[in-house]
């Protein structure tokens, strides 16, 4: 595998590359408009841009740190950039004057680093008139005669002040480009986060689905049915019907929030019928449902996992089997659902499955009724077995 270069290396490359492109572009523009000589055009171009090359990283950092934007903070940041922009522009212009104008402040002779000098050495050409040429780009009518003599200091200060304003827009161009890059990055990040959240949601939905219908239950039922196909086709037929009812409910209504209790009881009955075929008289189911509750809205498939828990962890481990009692009643503004089994009891069960099944029920009830709108309790039943009670607001469907 090829090793990727480190990120900073890449960014450095972008930075220098972008700078080179800018130099070329400015040189081309100059060559067309003001400086027909390519060499001088380039020299002007990079002498203009090198100070920015030095200052720009700071501007980029500052823009990332103090983002432009709306609101009080955004305004404060904008104000900051307005001020810092002036300073940066002044700094850049100062650098330019110091490094590239041979008669910069405090210099009586050509500076050590001067592109002009290099060319003189390279090309053996006589030095061209310099100071005005340095200002060629500026075109601000700063009147300084050509010649090697030092320009008066006050003139340089005035020049510096004026040129500062010339550099000022460049500061804002850098800020704008950086802001745009940052915004693009933010957008991409947000998109990625949205995708991640989407993925997690799907996973959660799948988990819910798996909890609602245990694979063990599904495949054991299919196994039992494949036996019945030979020995009792009528019963096999019924099993397929019950299983279809359950699967349809999980697939269609898995995302629906609530159904009338009567529908929920039908689903539960389909499940119980299957279990009774599988385990014969080992599982006895008794239900006592108040008729005024039949239209109450209950979370879809909230009962089946609880009853399944009672059977799997309470009744199944006991060779002689047992009972599951379901009671539903209205208590003032609440609906109370109680599932009791006389199985081995949670204390003796080695399975932690109860906890998982109940936390699923809790999560769904909390999503529907808020943290304080429901109650789920799990307690040992006197004389062996387990009691689970759900309490949540009694809601009739809006007619």
């Amino acid at each position, binding site marked *: 595998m090829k090793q990727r270069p480190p990120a900073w290396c890449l960014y450095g490359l972008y930075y220098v590359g972008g700078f080179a492109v800018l130099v070329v572009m400015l040189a081309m523009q100059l060559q067309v408009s003001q400086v027909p000589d390519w060499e001088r055009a380039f020299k002007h171009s990079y002498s203009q841009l090198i100070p920015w090359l030095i200052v720009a990283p700071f501007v980029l950092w500052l823009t990332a740190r103090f983002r432009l934007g709306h609101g009080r903070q955004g305004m404060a940041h904008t104000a900051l950039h307005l001020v810092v922009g002036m300073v940066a522009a002044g700094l850049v212009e100062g650098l330019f004057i110091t490094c590239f104008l041979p008669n910069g402040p405090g210099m009586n002779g050509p500076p050590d680093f001067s592109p002009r000098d290099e060319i003189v050495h390279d090309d053996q050409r006589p030095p061209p008139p310099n100071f005005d040429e340095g200002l060629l780009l500026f075109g601000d009518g700063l009147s300084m005669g050509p010649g090697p003599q030092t320009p008066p200091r006050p003139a340089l200060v005035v020049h510096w002040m004026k040129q500062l304003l010339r550099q000022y827009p460049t500061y804002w161009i850098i800020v704008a480009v950086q802001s745009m890059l940052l915004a693009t990055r933010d957008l991409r990040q947000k998109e990625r986060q949205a995708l991640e959240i989407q993925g997690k949601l799907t996973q959660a939905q799948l988990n819910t689905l798996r909890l609602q219908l245990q694979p063990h239950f*599904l495949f*054991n039922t299919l196994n039992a049915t*494949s*036996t019945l196909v030979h020995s009792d086709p009528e019963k096999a037929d019924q099993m397929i019907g019950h299983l279809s009812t359950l699967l349809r409910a999980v697939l269609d209504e898995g995302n629906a929030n609530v159904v009338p209790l009567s529908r929920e009881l039908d689903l539960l009955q389909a499940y119980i019928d299957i279990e009774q075929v599988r385990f014969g008289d080992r599982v006895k189911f008794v239900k006592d449902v108040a008729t005024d509750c039949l239209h109450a809205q209950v979370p879809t498939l909230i009962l089946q996992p609880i009853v399944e828990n009672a059977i799997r962890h309470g009744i199944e481990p006991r*060779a002689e089997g047992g009972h599951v009692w379901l009671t539903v009643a209205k208590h003032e503004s609440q609906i109370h659902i109680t599932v009791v089994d006389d199985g081995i009891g949670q204390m003796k069960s080695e399975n932690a499955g109860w906890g998982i099944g109940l936390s699923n029920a809790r999560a769904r009830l909390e999503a529907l009724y808020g943290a304080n709108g429901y109650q789920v309790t799990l307690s040992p039943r006197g004389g062996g077995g387990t009691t689970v009670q759900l309490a949540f607001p009694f809601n009739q469907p809006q007619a």
Partner: protein
Amino acid sequence: MKMQTLIVDDEALGRERLRLLLAKMPEFDIAGECHGGQEAVELIETLSPQIVLLDIQMPDLDGFGVIAELQRRGVQMPIIIFVTAYQEHAVKAFEVNAIDYLLKPVQGARLEAALDRARTQLAKDNPKDGQTRLANVVEQMQPKTTTY
């Protein structure tokens, strides 16, 4: 000689399924049936079947518990074919080179293939080989062996 097979499953219909399928295979005889792990241990000890079709999820003692208990008692280990509803255990069993496992609903052809492997295993000179392998399987699957 017919090979003696024991069927262990807590569901009557699960046992019936295996019985129906075995009835079509004349080389195998059903030595017995039971619906729980404890009973399976007793039957294996008394009947000494050559092959056991063993369900994993059972009320009193699960399939792995049965094997652990047989080892503890020092009972001659039969060839064991796991029969399970879901691959959560079977995949592990496969990784540690179990004799075989079957997924429910059990298919006739698949059962036949498993029994073929069992027969090959039995025909080998060193029947201990299978025993050691199965012991390894159990050890890796159940790091915390239940004590009785």
